[in-house]
């Protein structure tokens, strides 16, 4: 504390001298002041005054020009700019270090006056826009009128805001992240200092992540809401087109039995072309392209160019190549600029292929393509899930039409499923009359039935004879084969098949 006080007491008169020197230089005028002229307003010995002048210069508040043997002193309007304007020999040690740091910082440093004239820009910005010192920033950076203020610096000029932080697109389509604030100059004026970063890549990455998560979200929704593969494929294609804005697309699904690809969804094709004779052929050509991607086990990207009227060629492929011929035929039907075929696989299992085509000026960026490849496995997973569900429904139908009674119970022994044969044999009309009731109610000897359940839980299986009890009280002998089902997380339920003996034992 004491030290701080002493420093304050010591510094104060020096600060007064500094202020007097700056005022003296300003009073003398824009042409600058010699040490003799300054000494008239600040009566100090020549050496002492020289010492103070050099302190102020090191501080960046004043600068000088060497004219002959005399130094003409000026008040720095922009100290930062001043540092960069000096030659290496003229700079103090601190200025040298500071100017190097500022020149090589991996961000742009821009200093403007209040009329938005560029006073200083560092190497980072010069590399992007060239040397624009003296020009207005709206024109140099944004190609807009001088009166415009794309970054909202007017707030700083008006002192309504202390700081501006924004993200703007420049004249070259770069996304700039900018943070600007007011900086006080030694002559009492203010400048605007802005730190600028080219965030184009960052923004693209953010957009890609956003698109990817949006696609995954929509894909999850589509899988949950779809009952058929056609429904799922149509929804996926529509959602993808909304996010990526391509012109045309298809989802082809592989049929293992027929060993063929079938189109389950398509979007964007002009109706007239699709309905034409050549449009029908185009379906085969699309299959051929999809098959190529599947065989290669990786995405296939095709770029088309027009060789002659209505004749297309594939960039980088010889005309003799069969795939190039097929792809060129397809390109001529839909005037394609580019095509992208992605195999849809889940850990090696083939489900089909996704085709994307563009005919307009728009093209898929590298990011779009990697995004498509990124979601392709999720699409294939969704298709696999719906396929498996359809398969299970078929198997469930088979159990449903089986002539032998089959039932499932929870581990506690309450029926969770009975097939129609069970209902018919036990004399019930509806499964609601059976589900949830204790399983022992369907057998004459309840304790024997409970013992079966215990045995299945303990040993995993049970096979033997029981006497079944119908709804009307009659009984019949039955052979029961039961097994515990173990799922991913442990025992799930018990499944039993009943083999009724033909002779009924009459009423109990």
């Amino acid at each position, binding site marked *: 504390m004491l030290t701080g006080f002493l420093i304050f007491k010591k510094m104060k008169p020096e600060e007064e001298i500094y202020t007097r020197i700056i005022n003296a230089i300003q009073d003398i005028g824009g042409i600058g002041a010699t040490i003799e002229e300054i000494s008239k307003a600040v009566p100090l010995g020549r050496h002492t005054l020289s010492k103070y002048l050099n302190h102020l210069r090191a501080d960046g508040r004043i600068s000088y020009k060497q004219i002959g043997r005399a130094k003409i002193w000026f008040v720095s309007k922009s100290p930062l700019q001043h540092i960069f304007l000096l030659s290496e020999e003229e700079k103090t040690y601190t200025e040298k270090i500071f100017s190097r740091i500022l020149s090589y910082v991996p961000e742009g440093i821009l200093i403007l006056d209040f009329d938005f004239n560029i006073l200083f820009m560092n190497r980072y910005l010069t590399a992007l826009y060239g040397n624009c010192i003296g020009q207005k920033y709206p024109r140099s950076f944004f190609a807009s009128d001088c009166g415009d203020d794309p970054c909202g610096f007017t707030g700083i000029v008006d002192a309504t805001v202390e700081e501006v932080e924004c993200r703007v697109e420049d004249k070259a389509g770069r996304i700039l992240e900018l943070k600007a604030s007011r900086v006080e100059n030694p002559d009492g004026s203010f400048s605007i200092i802005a730190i600028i970063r080219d965030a184009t890549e960052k923004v693209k990455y953010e957009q890609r992540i956003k698109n990817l998560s949006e696609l995954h979200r929509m894909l999850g929704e589509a899988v949950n809401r779809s009952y058929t593969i056609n429904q799922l494929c149509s929804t996926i294609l529509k959602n993808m087109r909304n996010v990526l804005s391509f012109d045309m697309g298809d989802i082809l699904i592989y049929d293992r039995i027929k060993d063929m690809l079938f189109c389950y969804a398509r979007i964007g094709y002009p109706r007239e072309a699709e309905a034409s004779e050549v449009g029908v052929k185009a379906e085969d050509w699309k299959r051929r392209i999809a098959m190529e991607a599947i065989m290669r086990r990786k995405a296939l990207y095709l770029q088309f160019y027009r060789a002659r009227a209505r004749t297309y060629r594939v960039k980088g492929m010889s005309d003799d190549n069969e795939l190039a011929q097929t792809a060129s035929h397809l390109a001529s039907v839909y005037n394609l600029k580019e095509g992208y075929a992605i195999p849809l696989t*889940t*850990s*090696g*299992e083939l489900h089909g292929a996704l085709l994307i085509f563009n005919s307009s000026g728009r093209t898929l960026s590298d990011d779009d393509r990697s995004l498509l490849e990124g979601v392709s496995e999720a699409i294939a997973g969704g298709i696999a899930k719906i396929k498996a569900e359809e398969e299970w429904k078929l198997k469930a139908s088979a159990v449903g039409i089986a002539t032998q009674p089959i039932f499932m119970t929870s581990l506690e022994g309450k029926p969770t499923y009975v097939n129609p044969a069970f209902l018919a044999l036990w004399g019930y009309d509806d499964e609601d009359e059976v589900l949830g009731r204790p399983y022992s109610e369907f057998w004459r000897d309840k304790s024997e039935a409970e013992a079966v359940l215990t045995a*299945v839980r*303990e*040993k*995993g*299986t049970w096979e033997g004879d029981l006497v079944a009890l119908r709804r009307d009280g009659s009984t019949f002998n039955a052979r029961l*084969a039961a*097994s*515990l*089902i*173990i*799922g*991913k*997380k*442990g*025992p*799930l339920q018990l*499944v039993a098949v009943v083999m009724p003996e033909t002779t009924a034992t009459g009423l109990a």
Partner: protein
Amino acid sequence: MSKMCERKTIMIVDDEPDVLLSVAQILDANNYRTIKARDGQECLHKLKTESPDILLLDIMMPGLTTKEILREIEKDSRLSGMKILFLTAVHLQEAEEEDLFAFKQVVGLIGKPFSVRELLDSIEKAIQR
């Protein structure tokens, strides 16, 4: 009775405690001697002192991968007679299946959910091989 004379030992490796307990309980009740392990590390540790006839190995577990476990087992000649049956809740792709079945001791795969009847049949078949 014959089973009683030659009681086979089965090591069950599964990270799901309910699967581990229920399968062990069922196999105990069906006259097998069981050893339980919750992951590949514990499996390999127990295999240093035990030589089961059958290893029931869950494919998707945290820690060591199935291949890593199989490679370690292959190195131990003492375990060369042990047969391996996989348990899996995921559908294995052709390539993955080929890869895992390339290990000589692997004799089969049981997909979850499975009935205990399937499990017992698969074990019986594996023993007879």
